[in-house]
């Protein structure tokens, strides 16, 4: 037998496994995607274009839908581990619990990035936003928001999954922590959508960066304690 994998290698093994499962079943991704597109559509038909400008409404619509669609994916992150106590196979393996967290978070990041990759163009199309060069900056904001969301959501998904009200508990625990992400992402993307220079969004981007650094670190350190019975 060779050496047990290190933290990064083990994270990749866990992430690849989660992505393979999601690729086979596609249930969570399709649910989240349909939810996101329906959300964009409903918001569009509820919008009074004469009262609110598209550039004012679209950022809020985008990040609220992103948050709730992301939650749908995070619900399943640890759900798949409990079906036949597959989580015991991970916990009993010679890998660190931090590696399990990072692997799960990486798979969730791919998941929510996939949702964003469809939702952002949908919002741009529905609200007829003048995007061109700003799309790269918006992708950067999306990446920062996605990292923060999965960092917190993955931790709370692990905490909530063993409870009887997991589907209620995850949003209840996570949403207060998502407020800085939604605010930072909405405010900075609003400036981009209004055609303002990226420098105006910088204070909000700093909040997103700080949130990501603090919560990725804190959640990685806290995660090992969430799995103890």
């Amino acid at each position: 037998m060779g050496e047990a994998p290190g933290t990064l290698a083990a994270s990749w093994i866990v992430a690849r496994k989660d992505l393979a499962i999601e690729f086979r079943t596609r249930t969570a991704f399709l649910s989240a995607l349909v939810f996101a597109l329906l959300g964009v559509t409903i918001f569009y038909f509820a919008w009074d274009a004469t009262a609110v400008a598209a550039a004012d409404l679209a950022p809020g619509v985008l990040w609220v839908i992103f948050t709730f669609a992301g939650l749908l994916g995070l619900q399943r992150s640890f759900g798949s581990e409990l079906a036949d106590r597959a989580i015991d196979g991970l916990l009993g393996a010679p890998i660190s619990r931090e590696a399990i967290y990072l692997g799960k978070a990486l798979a969730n990041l791919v998941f929510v990035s996939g949702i964003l990759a469809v939702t952002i163009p949908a919002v741009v199309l529905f609200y007829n936003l003048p995007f061109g060069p700003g799309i790269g900056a918006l992708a950067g904001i999306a990446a920062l928001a996605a990292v923060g969301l999965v960092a917190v959501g993955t931790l709370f998904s692990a905490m909530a999954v063993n409870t009887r009200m997991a589907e209620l508990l995850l949003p209840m625990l996570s949403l207060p922590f998502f407020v800085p992400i939604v605010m930072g992402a909405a405010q900075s993307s609003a400036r981009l959508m209004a055609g303002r220079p990226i420098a105006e969004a910088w204070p909000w981007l700093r909040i997103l960066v700080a949130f990501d650094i603090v919560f990725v670190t804190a959640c990685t350190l806290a995660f090992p304690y969430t799995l103890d019975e």
Partner: protein
Amino acid sequence: MTSTPVVQAEGLVRSFGGRRVVDAVSFTLRAGDCLALFGPNGAGKTTLLRLVAGLLAPAQGTVRVNGVSIREGAAARAQVGLVSHASMLYGALTVRENVELAARLYGCAEPSVAAHAALALMGVEDRAETPARTLSRGLQQRVSIARAMVHAPRLLLCDEPYTGLDDAGSAALTEVLTERREAGAALLLVTHNLTEGLALATQAAIMRRGRFVRHEARELLDPSSYQSQYRELAAVHD
């Protein structure tokens, strides 16, 4: 025998909701030892197994595998294979992918080769590309055993491993367990079937209300009287 203990459990205590499920349990297994653990439902056997596997933290006591604490050392966990009540398989993955995943997590040099060998050992190599969820309970149990064996563990923890297996599966399992024992692995076998348990055992213990109420070397036992004594113990106290 004077070899280094493969596993040494000392004073293990674990409670759930104020009830001591495992209460001051100690045992030592050396290379080639097999402890057959019997006991009525709710005696604490599965909890003990999870403590030894490092899946649960004891309130008191320690488990050392080759001298390393199971809760603190990845090196200790790398020596352990676990067959549990649940299959621990991912239904959406194929049989091969499930066993290969375990091989990768345990650092096997060639995961595909190790997985194929483990599946062949349990006679399920022809189901390698079948999704695990579509298998019968018995076949899932075989794959689960292959998953636990893929890294050739030095300590094998088996919780009712014969459950769901047909005659061929049971025979394959007994052969594999005997072979692993002869290769120097230690076994902790939880079972309700005294005949199967005693056939492999070098030690036997009866657990009741979290404690070992009997624990002795296999050669000191008379299998025929042990059965009736076990029934008495189980019936009187539970």
